[in-house]
Structure formats: C-alpha cells, structure tokens
C-alpha cells in the first residue's frame, strides 16, 4: 500500500514541477540507479537461496509459459474490440 501512495506522490510532484525540466532529469537518474541496484539485489537474494538456484531451469520454463499464456489471453480478448474501433489505414 505504501508503494501506491509513494507512486501517486511522484505523480503529484511531477505535475506540480512540470515546468522544471531538471526534476525530470533527476527522476530519470533516480529510477535507473534504483532499478539497477534493485535487480542486482534481487539476483543476489535469489542466488543466495540454494533451493531456488537448483530450480532455475524450472523457473525459466515457467516464466516462458506464463508469458505465452498471458500474451495470448490479452490478444484473444482484444479481438472483439475490432468491431467497436473503426479500421483506419495508413
């Protein structure tokens, strides 16, 4: 829940500071640095867990299959929308 609050706090701060481009440059650095560190730490906490490491091929396979299932589900459910949205060509 805290994540949601902070997320919208960011949206509000960004909206207020719309004119100051430095804020966006700063947030870009903030997000990429924290993202790199977080993924590194996620990797470390997984590598540190021997049970998960021995399951790595299964995890990879599951990731792949869930990707296909979710993508396919989304693609199939948008098909009826072609009836609502008029076709526009280039």
């Amino acid at each position, binding site marked *: 829940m805290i994540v949601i609050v902070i997320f919208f706090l960011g949206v509000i701060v960004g909206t207020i500071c719309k004119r100051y481009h430095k804020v966006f440059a700063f947030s870009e650095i903030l997000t990429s640095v924290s993202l790199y560190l977080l993924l590194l*730490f*996620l990797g470390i906490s997984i590598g540190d867990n021997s049970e998960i490491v021995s399951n790595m091929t299964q*995890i990879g396979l599951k990731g792949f299959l869930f*990707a296909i299932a*979710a993508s396919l589900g*989304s693609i199939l459910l948008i098909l009826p929308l072609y009836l609502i949205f008029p076709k526009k060509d*280039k």
Partner: protein
Amino acid sequence: MANSLKLLLIFVVGVFVGILCLCPPFLNIEKISEYLLYLLVFGIGITISRSEGILKIIKTHHLKLFLLPLMITLGSLLGSVVMGLFYSDISLKHSLGLGAGLGYYSLSSLMISQYGFKEISAIALISNIVREISTLILAPVMIKYFGRFSPIASAGATSMDTTLAVIIKYTNKENAVISMFNGVTLSIIVPLLITFIYEF
C-alpha cells in the same frame, strides 16, 4: 531490446554474486531494497506525470479507448490463471500476480519480491521480459493474424516506450497514439493490481 537484456544481465550477475556468497554480510539487502523500491516508484510516478496529452487523447478519441487496457488486463489475468491450473505449486494468488505484471517486468517482479516471494518474483521477471522480447520479434506476424492491436496487447505496459518503435513501424501513427495511451494506463494499473492481489 538492448535495455531489457542489460537489466537481465544485471540480475544474472546478482545471481552469481549470491551463489558465490560475494556479498558483504553487513549489507541488509532486504531493508535497502525496500527503500530503493520507494525511490523507484517515486521516480516512475514523476516520469508518468510527464506523459501529458493523455487527457487530450481521451478527449479526441473517446472513452472507449479504455476498453483496450481493460481487455488486455483481463486477458493477461485469465491466461495466467489458466496456465496456473497446470502447476500445483503455483497458487491462484501467484497466477494472478504473474498475469498482473502486464509486461512491466521491473516493477512487477520487484514488488512481488518485496512481499517475500522470491521464486515467483524470478518467474515474473523472466515472464514479463519474454513478453517484451517476443513482441519485438513477432510484431509483424501478430499483426498479420490478429490485427493492429495485437502487439500492443502482447507488449502490455511497454507499449508506451520500448516496444512502441516496432508498433509504429508495422502499423500507423493513429495506432501509436493508442499504444502510448495503453502503456501509460497499464503502468498505473500494475502497482495497483499487485498491491490488491497480495494485500487483500
């Protein structure tokens, strides 16, 4: 694609550091990660606020535009739940969590990790990166068989940035606007949905 592979590489380096126990024990990774996640979502919030013109897009295109992210979200959740039926070790909650990533691999996997589910978090990371990469590679094929919205659907949240290039390339400008709108909407839905799934 280069960016997602770079991020995947950082993750893999982390895994090896973890396996080799190279990490200094005085670092409390869990605690640091919690605060880093707050910094990350704060920055993401600022970045999203920058994608103005959303209101303009809704005005010119009609509210029915929301049907696209709505159906994409429902489809992902449904697809994941069906896949989860084949795995006795993945509960309904985690199936929903995996589907709720909507291609937003960094935020979804890091949030799931923060709830303490490391293995599901790793699956979410890989699964959502695969969504991005497969969209980049298969976009022309998808459009041929499932129409101009299909790469937007398979990409999910990344349809506003990393996969937007191929979507523009193989469809048209009108579709690109829809794609961006969809990406921003899904990026807001992902943290809401994952919080909802894991806290309620």
